[in-house]
């Protein structure tokens, strides 16, 4: 097996994928690869094209252009093979809530052709994995949102998929439950050696879970790397300075030699520096009256993916979502249509 050592098996290959909804490009010429066993994140605001990407990869939508391979099967030409090797947890719940948890899992595993022995064994296994054994015979309509999500993850795993898609799988859950689901995801990635593609607009989620992150905005991938490397682009530390007359402060800070990068956002000026704790006193020493601005607060932190998003798109993810909602009713309508 020596010769195999440097060849990484690819779970997903996407080449120049485009999806056009009546002239509106939901995704625009995107390409990426996901290695087998990796946790890969598509990070971006609502309407950026994450769900469309997932739907194409899971054969539910046809791409307008480009090619996508899942487990080396073509999503257009080898639908059944693709469907067999993937599991998927949709953004909106997709359970039959007139059935119990076991019945939902049983329905799923019969649909995927598991025999009786395998079915019973696997149902127990996946229910244990998401801690729902004691609630197995309760009708799903009596489940809480978090329990439904866990059951859906369990169901996505029933037929031993090689790739699991999680589309906003923690949306609308409380922080505690979200944390739990993160741990389930990490656990099953380790235990079942399963490749996971997740979409999220929670920065901390992508940071915590993903080995690789693609930042996606307006249907395009603007950055793709490990969370650490993405953050390293911004340099060691970020000093956020809240000031009165930020324009003046921006001009002054820009000239300082140890400021590696600088950006302004509302009345906050962000400085990328090394050893930030030693730079704060130097900032304070600047004669603010003389230069015509006033520092109101100073904050020192390590860069987060939020900063990366801001760096690449010029706005925070929340602002992007607001502008989307206003400017792009068509897309919102599509997304919220069920």
């Amino acid at each position, binding site marked *: 097996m020596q010769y195999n050592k440097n060849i990484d098996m690819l779970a997903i290959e996407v080449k120049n994928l485009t999806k056009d909804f009546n002239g509106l490009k939901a995704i625009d010429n995107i390409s990426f690869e996901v290695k087998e066993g990796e946790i890969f994140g598509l990070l971006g605001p609502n309407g950026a094209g994450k769900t469309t990407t997932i739907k194409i990869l899971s054969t539910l939508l046809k791409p307008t252009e480009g090619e996508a391979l899942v487990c080396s099967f073509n999503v257009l030409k080898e*639908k059944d093979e693709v469907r*067999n090797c993937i599991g998927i947890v949709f953004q909106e719940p*997709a359970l039959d809530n*007139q*059935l119990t948890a076991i019945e939902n899992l049983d329905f799923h595993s019969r649909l*995927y052709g598991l025999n009786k022995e395998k079915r019973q064994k696997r149902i127990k296994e996946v229910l244990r994995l998401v801690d729902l054994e004691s609630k197995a015979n309760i009708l799903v309509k009596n489940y809480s949102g978090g329990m439904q999500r866990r059951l859906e993850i369990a169901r996505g795993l029933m037929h031993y998929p090689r790739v699991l898609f999680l589309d906003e799988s923690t949306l609308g859950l409380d922080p505690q439950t979200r944390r739990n689901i993160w741990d389930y995801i990490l656990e099953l990635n380790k235990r079942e050696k399963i490749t996971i593609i997740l979409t999220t607009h929670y920065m901390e989620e992508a940071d915590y879970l993903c080995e690789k992150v693609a930042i996606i905005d307006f249907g395009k991938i603007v950055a793709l790397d490990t969370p650490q490397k993405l953050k390293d682009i911004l340099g060691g530390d970020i000093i956020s300075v809240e000031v009165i007359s930020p324009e003046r402060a921006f001009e002054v800070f820009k000239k300082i030699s140890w400021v590696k990068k600088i950006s302004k956002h509302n009345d906050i000026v962000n400085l990328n520096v090394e050893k930030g704790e030693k730079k704060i006193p130097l900032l304070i020493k600047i004669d603010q009256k003389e230069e015509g601005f006033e520092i109101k607060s100073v904050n020192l932190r390590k860069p987060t993916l939020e900063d990366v998003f801001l760096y690449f798109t010029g706005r925070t993810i929340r602002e992007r979502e607001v502008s989307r909602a206003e400017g792009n009713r068509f897309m919102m309508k599509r997304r919220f249509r069920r």
Partner: protein
Amino acid sequence: MKSKNFQAIYVMWLREMKRFLRAKSRVIGTLAMPFFFLLSLGFGLRPSLNLPGMPQSASYIDFLVPGIIGMTMLFTSTFAGLSVLWDKEFGFLKEILVAPVRRLAIVLGRIAGGITTAIIQGFLILIISLFIGFKILNPFGIILTLIFMFLIGIGFISFGITMASIMEDTQGFSLIMQFIIFPTFLLSGALFPVSNLPGWLKPVIYINPLTYGVDGLRGSLIGFSQFPLLLNLFLLLIFDLVMIALGSWLFSKTEV
């Protein structure tokens, strides 16, 4: 088809059975209307009514019951087909569509589930009608009745699937009820002989597949029909095949 696809038909049927047995209110709800029609029209018009076009020997109840069974089949079957819409609404359709089975198997499974529940409900109405004075002339007619119920059911389930595949959500549901299902019922000869309707309505009646369903049921149960039973069978069969083809074709194009 591969065994996986047969398994899919079975599991779709199984799911429908479980839901049917659990949703008692739904069953009572869909049976209520034919039941009230049967009671009010049956008792209200019984003493006096013998319309031209009705057999002299039969009472109005005898004439009415096959019509009400046809009505039950129409409503429960269309409803079963349209239930695809609720799966769309509650997201469950995605779970089905992403499975590695043929779309045709999904449609056939839904038809299998729908036809079972519809025939059960049709028979419940038949049993109820025995208590209010309906007499079955020929016990062998029951088998023929079953065949007609089957053919009516399959056609209208597929019709429901067709409509559900075109519609995006449940909003158009009442439109279909008001503008398709009710006219289909009223202009099928279920409540009165169609020979009394004015000539300009005749084409509508002849196009209406339920006309042949009700006529066939009447022939099977009370031995009186307007058209030959074989013609009824033949036309219903054509209706079924066209609807199954249309329904599964449109369903296969569904994107979610």
